[in-house]
């Protein structure tokens, strides 16, 4: 399994996404109000919108292009929209944020 240190927790402001490139992957990282950290593929399933720039509410992000609501936990687009983004396990150790490069879920 591969994992990568993407930065420190301080670099992730609460409820504001950050984008990170790892090889060919482009991920969006989020730190929620209650300090959970999520990593998802930075492409909305609809038209590839930059999810890292969306409005974050609880464990959801709203795509800035057409307001699709994506769950950060499982990557599912919320009804009435359909689709899914890939999600990755993100952990915090000693103030550093790590992402495991094995998709979770499916």
């Amino acid at each position, binding site marked *: 399994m*591969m994992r*990568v240190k993407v930065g420190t927790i301080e670099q992730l402001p609460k409820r*504001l996404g950050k984008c990170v490139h790892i*090889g060919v992957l482009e991920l969006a990282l989020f730190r929620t109000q209650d300090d959970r950290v999520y990593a998802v593929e930075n492409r909305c399933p609809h038209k590839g919108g*930059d999810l890292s720039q969306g409005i974050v*509410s609880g464990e959801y992000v*709203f795509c800035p292009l057409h307001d699709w609501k994506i769950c950060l936990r499982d990557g599912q687009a919320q009804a009435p929209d359909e689709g899914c983004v890939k999600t990755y396990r993100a952990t915090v150790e000693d103030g550093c944020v790590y992402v495991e490069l094995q998709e979770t879920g499916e």
Partner: protein
Amino acid sequence: MKRKLVLVGNGMAGVRCIEEILKLNREAFEITIFGSEPHPNYNRILLSKVLQGDTSIDEITLNSWEWYEQNGIRLFAGETVTDIDHEEQLVRTDRGRVVEYDELILATGSNPFILPVPGADLPGVTAFRDIQDCERMIEYAKTYKKAAVIGGGLLGLEAARGLLNLGMDVDVIHIFDYLMERQLDPTASKLLQRELEKQGMNFLLRKETAELFGNGRVEGVRFKDGTSIAADLVVMAVGIRPNVDLARRSGIAVNRGIIVNDYLETNVPHIYAVGECAEHRGVVYGLVAPLYEQGKVLAQVICGRKGKSYEGSVVSTQLKVSGVDVFSAGEFMDGEGTESIKLYDEARSVYKKVVVREGKIVGAVLFGDTSEGRKLLDMIQRGDSLEALSLSLLAPASSGGKESLVATMADTDVVCGCNGVTKGAICQAIAEHGLKTVAEVRDYTNASRSCGGCKGLVAELLEHMLGEEVNRYTVKETICGCTNLSREEVIAAIKEKRLMTVKEVMSVLGWKKEEGCSKCRPALNYYLGMLYPGEYDEEVESLFVNERLHANIQADGTYSVVPRMYGGVTTAEQLRKIADVAEKYNVPMIKLTGGQRIDLLGVKKEDLPRIWADLGMPSGYAYAKALRTVKTCVGKQFCRFGTQDSTGLGIRMEQTFERLKTPHKVKMAVSACPRNCAESGIKDVGVVGVEGGWEIYVGGNGGTHLRAADLLCTVKTEEEVMEMTGAFLQYYRESAHYLERTSKWVERVGLEHIREVLFDVEMRRALLERLHKALSATKDPWREIVENERLQQTLFCDLGDKEPVPVE
């Protein structure tokens, strides 16, 4: 500091007034209430129901001890105010307490009238006024069998019914020759008497009481005609008297009641009277609806919002005796100048009469079937003409096929007269909160909370609504699915409770989702900014990306940059700068916008701050819900047809209103002649120069919902254009829904209404004042970010490129 408000009298009228005050402004007053009775506020009207055994004393409590506590009200129950010192503005009580006031409400109610006859003070003689009287009668009925009620009015009959229920024999003594003469005509009265006799009451009419006799306790009543009857219990229900002793002692003007004007003010400053103790235009009301109406007006006055005055009430009465339906309202007697329509079904004991004066419905009496009472009262209050009365309204209930009355009522018709609750309000509450029972409706709307006479109607309405009707009322526009509140309700709460952050709004107003969504967060952010200019710090994480990054996000994730060019005018130097920047950052496309500005498209997010720094120009706000551009034509300087300096005015407008945040984007244009080269007819604000002046158009839109602007007004000077435009923008800022374009807003609130507001010199001045306050608090966002390293880090920098590392 909070002002001190003292209420003397803990009854229905006074406490209702306090409730209204709390609704208007929770924080303004430190409230103290004195009540002579040892109970919290209860529903006196329902005492007869308690006596009749239909309900318990606990159930008629209107405001519990907790209610006082929760609202921070000091309640001294069982304590009587004995003295008002209006020089020092303080009251004294029978327990030696002294309390200061800034405002003082007298709601001392009334006392039962006790006949001044010998023996009136004998044990076994009681009035029927409070819980204690009620308890005493219940106690008596356990030992004694024979009761006499003096008074054949509403209260006397209700008391008599209660005593029958308690197993007593009851004689009702009345001085007139028919019952309830103040509410009923002789026909209805006779029907009533017949019905009550069937229930077991015995009537002695045209009897004047001379004395009550008895050895140690009451044993009987003797009349002026020499006859007498035996009685173990005598209830006096001959009327009430406003309780004005305290007022009179304190030098407040008193006639029958405490004299008040149309704002419930007594002749002494800062002292008001409301309810049964007050006399308004010569009338003392003893019914609950007028008292509540008075309470509403007085609450406004006390909160410093003197608005609608109180102009007296049309009263209606309903008898609360099971098995007997009686209703009367307004002018119910036939007399000089009145005509009436009557239905008299003797066989079924149904009688209905509608009284008409000069073609208008002025009164009604109903016996046997009172379901139309509310409807008739509404008609009387509105002064409807006879034509409005459908004769089927009077059709006997048993005629079959009669449509449910509630179905035919208009939304504005009042269902609960005591509390002034309309059909529409009840239906709305049922739909919004999914109410299922009369009790729930009462808790949400106050309907049926007082006399309870409308319970049947409420129940019918519920039944009706739970059918298909419910869908018609779910139309309240809430901000989003996270709340049941509308924009207006949220703004009112923000102001009233002085909520200062998005989070505070959500937690105080009970948001369903703790962090809201992409609809409510930006809206709340806007409302807070609009309400607290200069004070509220925008919450960046609640902004849509364009406004957070001050550039337009494009389909491919890049951004576009539009520097400000006032009025569409630029210089060689600016053009050169833009060209240099475009080259330096490899901007893939340079394009002119529809609003006469230059757009640099395809810029990478992380380049934005450096591009702005290099440009050294202010943001053009091409991304914002704010003033975008003022498009202009060439104007009289160069154009053959131009009548005015459109470019000059356009620049001035853009410089003045630059950075002003609005509910949605705002576009403006100035054309120098009716040829309208700047397309002023489809802008939020379009100005067209004509010979000797300017026309101002508003509410235009060239977008999805194409709409031609409406002519707001024509003015002579540039100064006036600035003033009207500014006031228009501010009013739009304050009253539009978030994301509502002016085109929709103008249609929703109406051009006439907007004119009324803007043409009112005072209101316009106030709007402009607030506008300038908002404008003076703005800063150019590009510069702010260029100068703020931390903001750049937070908003524009990504985490960069990383290499994966294998782990065990």
